[in-house]
């Protein structure tokens, strides 16, 4: 099929053709970026936390007597929780920090003593200092969270200390995430190294593969975290329970009842499964994914509608010409292909502008919002999607055109 007659025919509808191309270009640019954002958010929502998520439940309880010995109360609480049927292990964690629950506490850590001294001197963290999130808890925290050790060992019972306001009682060992280990000691084995925290050395005894932060920020730093052997000592306690997935609701209910029975002078602030924590954290992203999906489908629908509508007009307008062409020997296939090729040309031009526009849009969004750079493969994907959409939208009007009978040529319309 020759392209030349198609182009000269389109020249008669310059403005309309241009508008259709403009629409396809805009759709292409927006769809490309929207799909990119959707994939990004989906990746974010599915980030593994490193925990045995579907087996964890969380209860936070505040002792409102205040004057009591928090540590003793906590030990009693834990004993009761561990004795509950279905509970495999239980622990109390410090500061209520868990991956994705937004209770973040973080400390500067430097790879070596020199780095630390330099950072203090410059009053700025150097290249070998980072600010990971810190997690800590009673013995059993590691097992209850279901962390996965890839190197080194867990904490020994005698390494645990109790939280206190005195800085002197800082722990001397810690377990860090693999991504933090690689950041601090890119060349060496991190296990056995002494990192500097608040000017004191802390031995790295183990490495876990994943441990997500309570609060996500930059993708590269999302897994910068460390675990300390420190038992909390506060009237605000957060307990984590591990049980079989199907037992979680039951375990939570039983645990709250048992805690209230043990000491009624408390407020249960939170009782939820870990799944709920993840759900709450990503709720906005899920909304955004839904909205983006809705707009992508809306845009594609409107564009398909535009293509079909215009093509229908054109077919009606050219009925007589189609009849003449049929009368002088064009087959149905010729007519069908004519419209399909015409659509392909228009859509391709639209896509060419659209892809440029997509990159420009991405650059603009990057400038004003925290959005990563568009990966190149989204461009061919959106091109293919629009080509398919165009062909699908043109099919019905083109088939109608192909069914115009040659007799039409002899009629006066």
């Amino acid at each position: 099929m020759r392209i030349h007659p198609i182009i000269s025919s389109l020249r008669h509808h310059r403005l309309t053709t241009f508008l259709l191309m403009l629409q396809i270009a805009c759709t292409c640019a927006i769809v490309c970026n929207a799909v990119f954002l959707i994939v990004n958010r989906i990746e974010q929502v599915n980030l593994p936390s490193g925990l045995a998520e579907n087996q964890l439940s969380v209860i936070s309880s505040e002792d409102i007597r205040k004057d009591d010995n928090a540590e003793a109360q906590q030990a009693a609480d834990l004993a009761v929780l561990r004795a509950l049927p279905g509970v495999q292990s239980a622990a109390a964690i410090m500061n209520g920090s868990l991956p994705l629950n937004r209770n973040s506490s973080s400390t500067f850590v430097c790879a070596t003593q020199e780095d630390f001294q330099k950072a203090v001197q410059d009053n700025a963290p150097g290249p070998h200092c980072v600010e990971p999130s810190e997690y800590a808890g009673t013995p059993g925290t590691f097992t209850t969270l279901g962390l996965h050790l890839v190197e080194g060992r867990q904490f020994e019972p005698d390494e645990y200390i109790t939280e206190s306001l005195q800085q002197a009682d800082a722990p001397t060992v810690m377990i860090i995430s693999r991504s933090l280990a690689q950041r601090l000691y890119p060349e060496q084995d991190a296990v056995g190294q002494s990192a500097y925290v608040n000017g004191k050395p802390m031995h790295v005894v183990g490495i876990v593969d994943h441990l997500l932060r309570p609060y996500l920020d930059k993708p590269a730093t999302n897994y910068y975290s460390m675990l300390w052997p420190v038992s909390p000592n506060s009237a605000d306690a957060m307990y984590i329970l591990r049980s079989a997935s199907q037992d979680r609701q039951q375990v939570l209910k039983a645990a709250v009842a048992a805690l209230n029975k043990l000491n009624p002078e408390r407020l249960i602030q939170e009782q939820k499964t870990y799944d709920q924590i993840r759900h709450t954290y990503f709720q906005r992203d899920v909304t955004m994914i839904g909205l983006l999906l809705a707009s992508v489908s809306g845009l594609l629908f409107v564009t398909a509608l535009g293509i079909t509508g215009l093509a229908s007009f054109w077919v009606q307008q050219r009925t007589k010409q189609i009849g003449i062409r049929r009368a002088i020997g064009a087959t149905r296939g010729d007519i069908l292909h004519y419209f399909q090729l015409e659509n392909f040309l228009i859509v391709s031009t639209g896509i060419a502008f659209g892809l440029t526009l997509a990159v420009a849009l991405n650059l603009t969004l990057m400038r004003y919002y925290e959005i990563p750079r568009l990966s190149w493969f989204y461009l061919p994907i959106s091109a293919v999607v629009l080509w398919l959409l165009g062909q699908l939208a043109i099919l019905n009007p083109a088939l109608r055109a192909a069914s115009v009978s040659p007799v039409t040529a002899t009629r006066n319309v």
Partner: protein
Amino acid sequence: MFSYYLNLALRSLKRNPVLTALMVLAIGLGIGASMTMITVLHVMSGDPIPGRSAQLFYPHLDPLPSNYGNNPHAPDASADFTWVDAMALLQAHRAEHQAAMSGGALLVRPSQMDLQPFYADGRYTTPDFFSMFGMPFMSGRAWSQQEEDAKARVVVLSNDLAQKLCGGKTCIGQEVRFGDNDFRVIGITDNWNPQPQFYSDDTGDLFSDPDQFFLPLSTAVDLKLGVSGNQSSWCKNSSTDDERTSGCMTWLQVWVQLKNQEQVSAYRQFLVNYSAQQKALGRFQRPATNAKLYSLMGWLAHQNLVPTDIKLQLWLAVGFLFVCMVNIVALLLAKFLRRSSEISVRRAMGAGQRDIFIQFSIESAIIGLAGGALGLGIAELGLWSVRQRPDDYARLAQMDVSMLLSTLVLALFASVLAGMLPAWRACRVPPASLLKTQ
């Protein structure tokens, strides 16, 4: 003539019912999506306290040491005041009204046996707060400056909390227990809930529930009650038993009321002078010109309350509307030009270009009105879905009359604009040329 064009337009629209419906749907979707997001933005950047906002100002000092760490993710430590500076500003009395305040959450222990203790959010503040913000009282009164100075154990309750604590009986004069302390109820406020809650610390949810109680600031400091919101400290030696009353921890908000432009410029100068004086004393290290005075709306704009996602969603909706508009222009253009022969006949029979233009504009306006009506429905649906979100601003997402009208105006404007080009092309069809060919 108008009714004739209307008739013509309706006939033409009826001839392609499917296409007409699809065009109405496209413009409805575009308008609905845009209006949903514009309404959300509108309620989030609205005036929280109309009538008073023009006279309310937020002073800003910069007491931070020059080497204070600048974490881009941490809230701005200099957005709040130290106790020393807040008290200095209050005692200087340079404004009509001035108040220092901070948020706090306290454990309320109801005297009724059947009620569990619960946490309530409230505010510790100085007495000018009530007169400056025009807080309505249901009964009782605010505390006086004497009571403030005497660290009186008095409290003003919100109507809600009073109902909860005292049931049907009057609360005034009763003692209520917050944490480990008893306070005498001296006033009950009527419903008052500016949105956003402009006067609170910007790290919290500014679109949150109203304050449940109000306590004298000096009493709260005296009893060392817990403070919510950002507290940034750079104290070298934490030997003082309460960092909060030292000059090296920011945690308070200060609002002032200024009546006219002279007072505003005078106050601005006063802030700079105060900073310079503090710098001379060695307390401040940063330039005195860092001192600023924000208007209420300026302060809200400075805090940038609209989340990124909302802005992205707005752009998405606007982009969607644009594509819908282009779509409609193309469809109308094709539709109008297909009727070239009809136009030719009308022109040959004496219709002017203007008549043709008006005729087709009316046709596109009808599509616009129908699309606008549909868009309103879609926007209501969209706002309903926004209200289901867990965010603090969600429940504010309601359409008011002005938004309702702007939706219709936007729809009409968009469709007439979309119809303009096709109508113009149509009216330029020469009178006789097309009569010949057929």
